[in-house]
């Protein structure tokens, strides 16, 4: 019975195919029933730091998990440089290349404070953020140290309208440091860059520079079952087929024996099928309703904040459509 249950909820990974993939008739899918979901859905956070969160979702349909990923990538809005007025650029980088580089730099400010800009209107304090960049490399030097890198740390925020009062001291808008300020261009003695850069609000679906995640992804929970005892040199070989930490070796009666330690770390690479003698020794499978989800932030929003905003967007989507449906009904 346990085997049958396992079969129902797992995709079996074989050398050349995946089996048991079809999830059965949708009417039978428990995870799509709200009552079942409310009782059995679980989230466990596996790790969390200021740039990345890894959490697992249990008893959820894959299309929901994918919806979360899609929203994180293309619908959570941020502010990014969208209009650059170049007053002077004598650096080796052409204007448009410099502008494109600047556009891709993440801007650390809460996007909720701003609205999306309407085409044709003047940028205002409600929909724009302005920065100034003016660096001149002193003329005359001949040494390596007389050159100057222009980095994201050289940007100076210019408050528009009432923006100076919007931010607490120390938390003003700035550009994100990725370990250290991002180098935009390099100046030789006598060269200069002078520009005004404006940020507008949009999302990843419009342009990748607005994406708040340095990607987000998920994988189904891998499961590895050893069908027989694998010992000696074969055990070491088996260990090398999987990601480090998945299989460990313990000593039993003087012999090295393989055992499954942490299947979560596996990337389902199927390397084990390289070896004829090991192909039949493991059963690899993936869960259909248990996923490990990773979100890496670009530094604008915390990873927890990102997930919460994405969920909020999904809820709002449904609400908007329900609202439209009700209007629709009234009209017809």
């Amino acid at each position, binding site marked *: 019975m346990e085997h049958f249950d396992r079969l129902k909820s797992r995709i079996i990974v074989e050398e050349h195919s995946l089996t048991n993939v079809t999830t059965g008739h*949708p009417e039978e899918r428990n995870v799509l029933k709200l009552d079942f979901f409310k009782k059995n859905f*679980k989230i466990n*956070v596996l790790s969390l730091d200021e740039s990345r969160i890894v959490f697992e979702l249990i008893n959820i349909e894959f299309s929901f998990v994918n*919806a979360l990923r*899609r929203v994180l990538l293309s619908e959570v809005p941020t502010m990014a440089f969208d209009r650059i007025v170049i007053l002077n650029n004598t650096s080796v980088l052409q204007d448009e290349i410099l502008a494109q580089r600047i556009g891709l730099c993440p801007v650390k400010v809460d996007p909720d404070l701003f609205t999306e800009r309407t085409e044709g209107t003047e940028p205002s304090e409600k929909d724009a953020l302005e920065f100034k960049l003016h660096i001149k490399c002193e003329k005359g030097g001949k040494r390596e140290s007389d050159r100057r890198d222009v980095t994201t740390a050289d940007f100076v925020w210019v408050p528009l309208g009432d923006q100076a009062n919007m931010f607490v001291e120390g938390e003003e808008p700035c550009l994100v440091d990725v370990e250290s300020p991002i180098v935009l261009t390099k100046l030789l003695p006598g060269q200069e860059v002078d520009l005004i850069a404006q940020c507008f609000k949009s999302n990843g679906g419009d342009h990748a520079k607005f994406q708040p995640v340095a990607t987000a992804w998920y994988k189904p929970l891998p499961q590895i079952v050893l069908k027989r005892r694998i010992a000696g040199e074969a055990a070491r070989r088996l260990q090398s087929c999987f990601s480090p930490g998945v299989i460990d070796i313990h000593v039993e009666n003087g012999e090295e024996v393989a055992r499954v330690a942490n299947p979560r770390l596996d990337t389902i690479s199927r390397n084990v099928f390289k070896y004829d003698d090991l192909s039949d020794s493991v059963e690899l499978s993936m869960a259909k309703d248990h996923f490990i989800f990773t979100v890496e932030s670009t530094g604008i929003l915390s990873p927890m904040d990102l997930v919460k905003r994405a969920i909020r967007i*999904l*809820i709002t989507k*449904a609400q908007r459509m329900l609202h439209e*449906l009700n209007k*629709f009904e009234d009209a017809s």
Partner: protein
Amino acid sequence: MEGAERKIAKVPSSDDSCVTFILNDETHTIGQPLHMLINNQPEVEFAGYSVPHILEKKINFRIQTKSQDHLAVDSLRQGLSDFERFWRHADATFDNAVQRFSNSTTH
């Protein structure tokens, strides 16, 4: 076809139990989970979606119910409502999970 700029439009049909809805400005993000949810409803004979053209951001969502008594629009409404409730529950579950994690690591 009326209502091209509306969020939800409908391909005109004489039968209210077999309807194709046009969801403007939507993609697989809502299409896939919504069609799984609506197919799960016992009164629904068929639910499916497609992207009519990849360069236009909209989806055609078709619902056919098993009897004339059940309107397709009611199935759509139920599906959207369930979708919202799923995510509200997920939101609360996520909050609890983060809380539990920070409690367990601050000891």
